[in-house]
């Protein structure tokens, strides 16, 4: 079977993340990036399916993003995926979820013969969670989202979705789009052999023209919503210092009550 995993290259949460002052988009060029941690679960799940199948199942990694996003593909290949597709085009900068889903859908169609599309539950930078659903809609495929467990059975996929009030078991026919949560598995580290092997794996790069997408449909200008203003979160306030001049205990108790800790 053919599995496509959609992954995103995101700014490293460990480093200082900033916004581009000119257009209020996330700064992607100047900061260190990495494969979105939430997407590692999707890659791992695809690899587990491949290993369990033991047949000629292939795992193709699909990403859309600037040149640096190739690192997210590389990391996935090092973990064990078979091939990569990187959609990169200057016109894509600033694309919203709608444009992203359009481009990913075109790429999935171009890859062709896909039985299962896996994604993370959200990106760790945008955290919109909507791309999987939009992608399924564009592909005309069933969408089963937020899978915390996944089983394949011939022509169907069954997932468990843990909600706040109920746990649902959802089944869909293949091909389907499935987004997975961070509960589904424990992503592996690449092995050194995997790192070496990844160099020999095919990675195709597509432009918008390759996918037959018009530049006017994507990018900042085509976005349905616009971020008009961004304010940096204020630094954390300094805590309250209680000087104990005899009634420290009472002040502490009062503070805890006010904060509803007791």
């Amino acid at each position: 079977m053919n599995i496509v995993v959609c992954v995103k290259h995101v700014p490293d949460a460990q480093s200082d993340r900033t916004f581009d002052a000119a257009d209020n988009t996330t700064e992607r060029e100047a900061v260190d990036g990495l494969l979105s941690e939430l997407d590692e679960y999707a890659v791992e799940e695809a690899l587990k399916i491949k290993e369990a199948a033991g047949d000629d199942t292939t795992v193709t990694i699909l990403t859309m993003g600037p040149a640096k996003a190739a690192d997210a593909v590389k990391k996935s290949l090092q973990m064990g995926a078979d091939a990569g597709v990187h959609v990169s085009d200057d016109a894509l900068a600033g694309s919203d979820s709608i444009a992203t889903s359009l481009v990913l859908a075109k790429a999935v169609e171009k890859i062709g013969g896909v039985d299962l599309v896996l994604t993370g539950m959200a990106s760790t930078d945008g955290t919109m969670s909507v791309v999987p659903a939009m992608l399924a809609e564009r592909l005309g495929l069933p969408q089963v989202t937020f899978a915390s467990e996944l089983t394949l059975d011939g022509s169907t996929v069954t997932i468990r979705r843990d909600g706040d009030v109920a746990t649902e078991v959802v089944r869909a026919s293949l091909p389907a789009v499935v987004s997975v949560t961070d509960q589904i598995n424990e992503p592996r580290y690449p092995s050194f052999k995997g790192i070496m092997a990844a160099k020999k794996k095919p990675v195709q790069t597509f432009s918008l023209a390759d996918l037959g997408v018009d530049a006017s449909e994507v990018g900042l200008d085509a976005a349905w919503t616009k971020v008009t203003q961004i304010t940096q979160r204020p630094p954390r306030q300094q805590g309250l210092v209680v000087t104990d001049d005899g009634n420290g205990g009472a002040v502490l108790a009062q503070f805890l009550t006010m904060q509803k800790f007791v």
Partner: protein
Amino acid sequence: MPVDRLLPTADAHDLIDLTREICDDRLRPVVDDAEAQARFPREIFDLLGRSGLLTLAYPEDIGGGGQDYEVYLQVLEEIASAWMSVAVGVSVHSLTCNPVVAFGTAAQRDRLLPSMLGGATLGAYCLSEPTAGSDVAGISTRAIRDGEEYRLRGTKAWISHAGHADFYTVFARTSDDGGRGLSCFHVPADAPGLVFAAPERKMGLDSDTVGQVIFEDVRVPADDRIGAEGQGMGIALSALDAGRLGIAAAATGLAQAALDVAVRYANEREQFGRRIGEFQGLAFLLADMEAAVASARATYLHAARLKDAGRSVGRQASVAKLVCTDAAMRVTTDAVQVLGGAGYTKDFPVERYMREAKVTQIFEGTNQIQRLVISRDLLRG
């Protein structure tokens, strides 16, 4: 700040990145607790094995990583900066594989190397004895030939991974002919008669379980003797450089870790209304620490590059072991000084680093023995 490394290949950079990721995610979060409880972190060795980091310096065609010493040792340094006991364990495991790799028959290599180099098993290196430490030729553990078997009798001391290893690479006496009477054996952990004493209660390196391994008439098939009878000393000596360079690199990583903590602290702690790093008396201490770490790294890397080029590196390996471990002792001691009273508490890692540094001057040949090797080599001309 991560150490700025010059590496020969793009693969090597990826390898260092992988090592750092694993160290940050899986070693640093658990090292304090594991060391405090003297817990042997078998799961960490399994992870390193799966990731291909346990046998990097062995050729790829037999299951290793095919990396130069220049690269393998820098990986080891990175691991040591996160968890010294684990780095020592990696170096020890690497050592245990050498006899089969370098002296095994084709059949032995086919039979033993896949699991030894495959990352799923861990070895222990049984050379030292209660009465034979620096003086290896004084080994008294016996291997008595009995038909198609040997019977091993005696006590090995200070054995890292004792009771946790899957196999034991053992040096034992097959004749009374001093250094020429030693032979090397491969003994699986489940061999009947293999007994483990209670672990030593050490000054540090607590997660490296070290203890006596007692051979109570352990039967070893003659097929599991590695090399010829009497070749044991030569086999042990052949891996000396590798082991010494491993400890040199690990000591450098330990020193780097101590320096990093000290610099951070000096930038934060204030006395007399200023950050203590602004006092020249303290800043110069940090400068000397950096100079010690940087020169230690340069020294082991020089030896590694000579080794990679196929030169004989006996003297340089001893110089590296001596320089790096003495640097580690000084830098970790100074790091405690930089942190003042805090450095002397277990709330900060530097007191542990200082205790860990001490052993690097002792094992893999004490630093007196390194001076002996260096001076003899010099005077031989």
